């Protein structure tokens, strides 16, 4: 790969933004995790769509399935927050509007993820039947 960076820039390792590339890397790492997780989620959605209530509860209660569903929720929750954040940062230029949307994005992503994770754990730990 062509290297456009100067030796000093490489040594500082902070890039054009002036701070670390942690957000960028975290978005990619969560993307890699979501390759197998999202494919499994499509399979899980197919199983769930063809089951009645007791069948779905049984599927969610199976430990491997419960853990994989929670992982899908956590990693996709992280990834969608990171992705929507970049969209807001790219397109919304007003200080107030941008800040409000970034906070809303964080709160919404955490709330949606927390509600889903709690409900799945409740069902998996026997709270639904």
């Amino acid at each position, binding site marked *: *790969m*062509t290297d456009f960076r100067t030796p000093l820039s490489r040594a500082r390792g902070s890039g054009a933004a002036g701070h670390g590339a942690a957000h960028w890397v975290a978005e*990619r790492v969560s*993307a*890699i995790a*979501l*390759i197998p997780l*999202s*494919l499994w*989620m*499509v399979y899980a959605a*197919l*199983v769930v*769509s*063809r089951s009645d*209530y007791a069948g*779905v*509860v049984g599927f*969610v209660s199976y430990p491997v399935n419960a853990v994989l569903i929670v992982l899908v*929720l956590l990693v*996709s*929750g992280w990834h*969608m927050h990171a*992705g*929507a954040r970049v*969209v807001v940062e790219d397109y919304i230029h007003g*200080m107030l509007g941008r800040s409000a949307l970034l906070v809303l994005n964080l709160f919404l*992503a955490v709330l*949606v*993820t927390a*509600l*889903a*994770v*709690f*409900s*799945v754990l*409740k*069902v998996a730990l026997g*709270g*639904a039947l």
Partner: protein
Amino acid sequence: MTVPARERPLSPHLQVWRWHLTMLTSILHRATGLALYGGAVIVAVWALSLGAGPEAYQGFVDLMASPLGRFVLVGLTLSIFYHLANGLRHLFWDAGLGLSVTASHQSGIMAMAFSVVATITVWAIGLGPGGL
């Protein structure tokens, strides 16, 4: 924030450019990503209704089986497969691979074709006879 001494030039925005494939795939990546944000809300409603009991869950199932529900679910299936395939493209680009015009056009067409074929396959399995 410091006020700039003079107005800095902005890069040309969407309406200036002739439409081309890599531009379309990039816009679709963001659009499908935001659509999947909505999909996460639907998954949360699914989990909540499942935890709330059989009547609540039946309400969710009926909503998803309605024409609007089906339309949304097909859109989300397309979105998940497109975002997956195009995300893979982005990961290869981040590694410095497949950046030429020819390669990025080919992979863009492949990502779009994959998302359509995979969506048709999943819905054929989902609506078809027999179990999994």
